[in-house]
């Protein structure tokens, strides 16, 4: 999902919705209560194999083809921790500024569900990998806000359960079972649906920069549950909290929180009380509704997983990872500002995704940062949005874009032609130089040839020529347009202008 474009559109949409609240009754409600939100994010780590066995973690395989006795929870099997899953988790925790614990262990969380073949989940309870980190977000007014991370712990993913609508059966696919997860729990310091959205965007950006997860919410490699409660402003005691599940995009998280904020305010206004419960977000109806499942007691009977040993995390290892972390979004923003001398808005757009920033830097090796930036935030992002594709999915090498930019700079093709070339490039994956040649888009920059054409235009546009002579500058545009028409857009506009001026004004 191209977060840049879609994300911005969504935030505009939100602003509109927010505006509507500022009138009438809703405004009062909004003013009366403070919203308190905490988010639990599950990130699937991009390892080759599962967390406790050597099955592949590839997404989208035929059901039950990436399973073995271990992840099937067959009698007699034992888990062994994937080192890479541990390292990925550690990288995230360090990048979030967490306190990495000197020692961690795994625990069993016991509950029955058919997507959990052992009927316990291997997780971390009282000795997780890390506590106390933070994510910094930028608020609408430009202020930076720090959202605390309570803890981050490793665990195994469950399988997938498919319900037969209206039927008597459910179907279980265990390919996903045992995929490594890092659960990141925020402090209840988020104060609005918009902040929740920004938190997710910032968190995702950091993780993507680390390259340890795809963070693809549609494929479930990033998932988010939210806890939300309302309290009267000025009070410190938290209200009853409601857990919301089943949100499949950042937008859904915001919409669900927005809905729930309203719903709870209404209940409270009518003198009611909020029931502590789990509610599901219904994407189509745009409402949350109570799970209404039989109230299970949440007695998970955690106890230390005897099949796994404890893990010591040496300060030396933590330091080594910290020293070798890739450049994170905040640092990259600073560097872009300094190195490329761009304004904060442009820097923000370029660093919104690691891939975009990488792409930009590849292009600037061969061309000026300013034009690279303009092309990326203009044409390239338009194509990304059109196709809902990531920048590297556009099928255009950074070198090709650089070539196009250089051709424009050198007057080989016109700006207009360049846009066509880019489209062609993206659609056919061809070298821009070949496209220019095949389509005959080479700009006419031959002075002699252009002078002949200019002479023709001057002859048939006597009135306009006179206008220009009399100082009507916009007449020049018209004349250049006429030259363009005659050359099918291939005339070098700058050169054409110069020749026209010279010939007419002398």
């Amino acid at each position, binding site marked *: 999902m191209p977060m840049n474009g879609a994300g911005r559109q969504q935030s505009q949409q939100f602003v509109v919705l927010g505006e509507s609240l500022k009138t009438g009754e809703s405004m009062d409600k909004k003013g009366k209560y403070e919203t308190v939100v905490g988010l639990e994010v599950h990130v699937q780590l991009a390892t080759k194999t599962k967390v406790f066995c050597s099955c592949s973690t590839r997404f989208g395989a035929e059901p039950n083809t990436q399973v073995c*006795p271990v992840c*099937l*929870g*067959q*009698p*007699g*099997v*034992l*888990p*062994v*921790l994937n080192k890479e899953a541990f390292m990925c988790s550690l990288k995230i925790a360090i990048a979030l500024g967490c306190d990495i614990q000197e020692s961690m262990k795994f625990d*069993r969380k*016991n509950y*029955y569900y*058919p997507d959990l*073949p*052992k*009927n*316990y989940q291997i997780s971390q309870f009282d000795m997780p990998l890390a506590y106390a980190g933070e994510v910094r977000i930028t608020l609408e007014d430009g202020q930076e806000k720090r959202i605390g991370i309570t803890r981050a712990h490793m665990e195994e993913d469950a399988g997938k359960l498919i319900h037969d609508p209206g039927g008597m059966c*459910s179907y*279980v696919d*265990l390919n996903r079972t045992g995929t490594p997860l890092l659960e990141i729990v925020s402090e209840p310091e988020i104060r609005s649906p918009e902040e929740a959205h920004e938190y997710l965007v910032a968190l995702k950006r950091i993780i993507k920069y680390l390259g340890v997860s795809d963070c693809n919410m549609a494929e479930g490699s990033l998932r988010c549950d939210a806890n939300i409660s309302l309290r009267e402003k000025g009070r410190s005691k938290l209200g009853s909290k409601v857990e919301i599940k089943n949100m499949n995009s950042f937008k859904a998280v915001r919409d669900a929180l927005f809905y729930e904020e309203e719903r709870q305010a209404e209940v409270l206004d009518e003198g009611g009380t909020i029931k502590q419960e789990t509610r599901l977000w219904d994407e189509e109806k745009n409402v949350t509704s109570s799970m209404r499942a*039989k109230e299970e*007691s949440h*007695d998970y*009977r*955690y*106890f230390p997983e*005897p*099949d*796994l*040993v404890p893990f010591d995390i040496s300060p030396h290892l933590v330091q080594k990872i910290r020293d070798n972390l890739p450049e994170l979004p905040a640092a990259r923003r600073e560097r872009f500002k300094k190195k490329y001398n761009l304004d904060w808005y442009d820097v923000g757009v370029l660093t919104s995704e690691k891939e975009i920033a990488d792409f930009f830097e590849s292009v600037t090796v061969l061309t000026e940062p300013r034009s690279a930036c303009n092309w990326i935030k203009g044409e390239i992002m338009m194509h990304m949005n059109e196709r809902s594709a990531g920048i590297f999915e556009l099928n255009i090498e950074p070198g090709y874009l650089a070539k196009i930019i250089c051709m424009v700079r050198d007057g080989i093709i016109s700006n207009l032609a360049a846009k066509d070339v880019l489209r062609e490039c993206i659609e056919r994956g061809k070298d821009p130089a070949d496209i220019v040649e095949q389509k005959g888009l080479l700009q006419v920059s031959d002075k002699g040839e252009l002078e002949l054409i200019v002479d023709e235009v001057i002859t048939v546009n006597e009135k306009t020529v006179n206008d220009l002579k009399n100082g009507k500058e916009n007449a020049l545009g018209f004349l250049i347009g006429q030259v363009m028409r005659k050359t099918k857009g291939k005339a070098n506009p700058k050169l054409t202008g110069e020749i026209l001026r010279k010939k007419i004004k002398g």
Partner: protein
Amino acid sequence: MKITLSNITAYKKWLNKENKPLSLAAKDLAAHAAEINKDVRSFIAIDPDVITNRALSLEKQTKRGSLWGVPVALKDNICIKGGLTTCGSRILEGFRPPYNATVATKLQAAGALLMGRANMDEFAFGSSCETSCYGPTRNPRDLSRIPGGSSGGSCAAVAAAQVVAALGSDTGGSVRQPASLCGVVGLKPTYGRVSRFGLVAFASSLDQIGPVTTNVEDCARMLEVISGHDAKDSTSVDINVPEYTASLERDIKDVTIGIPKEYFTCGISKDVSRRVQEAIKALKGLGAKIVDVSLPHTKYAVSCYYIIAPAEASSNLARYEGVHYGRRSAHAEDLIEMYIASRNEGFGAEAKRRILLGTYALSSGYYDAYYLKAQKVRTKIADDFRAVFTACDCILTPTSPTTAFKIGERIDDPLKMYLSDIFTIPANLAGLPAISVPCGEDKSGLPVGLQFMAGPFKEEMLIRVAHAYERSR
């Protein structure tokens, strides 16, 4: 047809003399075991075709290992790829694992002829081999009595000479106690010495697979084969496996044996006490130094164990509910009903009792009082041993307070049954190696067992002392 199954050396001599392909000998072995099984019922099933096929594949082995052709029984909780493995439980009816336990792979690589599934208490919950869904196994020395448990089938099969050796699993004495009651040798290795991969878990922090043999020498041979690091088991320890048979011939003149007074208090039968005292005298005669030691937290071992073991078991057994394998009840409309009906129909009373007890100990509000408390007492018990092993090389105790009791005698009194393991449980809690060797009989002719315990990975010491003692008799 006379088959010699008294020990590995004698069996190999017999096999050589027979001078026929192993697959043919295997037919005789299967028939012989099946005949005895009619009375003893140590095997859940003996399938001559399966045994013959295994013998045929052993015939193709170019390098003949130390156990080539030796008939070995596996407890029904050790997975063999494609073979039935049911843990003596209805809930695993028809289950054939798609993989081999590490010990099964190792045994087959060493040439052992796997004879089939030895009966056991359901999921190893028991000390009498009576809770199997296939019915009780009988003690070969007195068919009206229990063979001990939970590895009752493994020990009875060796004692009845149906096989030369067997593997059992020992969580609280499940190899040593039945070995003692059947008059054979049983060893529980140090926790982490033998891979648990493919052993259906009862209590993961206590379980170890151990050999059952007729003598200490065979025990050493079996241990050599099954020991060693396994990357598939996080709790398997990566240290060298000594040549255990090499320590057999050493004398014990430099060995100090500790006698913990707590194991000789009430509850121990007169005959057992007498035989053990005689053994102490014999060991003194062999030149060992005997010292009195104290393990003050011994009396808490059973309590500690009956929190930790059921707690872990309640979680380990949660996977049996009829979704992915095993038995599913036909009497259910929805998922939860299906879980409940499958488990109700599939588990026997003792399994249910332990699941309830373990779930209770872990449940909210009780965890600190039970599970956490037990883990702390476990530390105390292990500390006792650490202290004692600075003063002695090994510890001698009876294996079981009594000899084999009658079938049905304790089945309705769980607590009394649990106390059968009072002398064997501490070694599991402390993760220590321990061996039971025969030390005579009571006045009705029932075997008495002697237990030696040593420090972590000191199996060599156990084998040395037990072998010296065995030879002196």
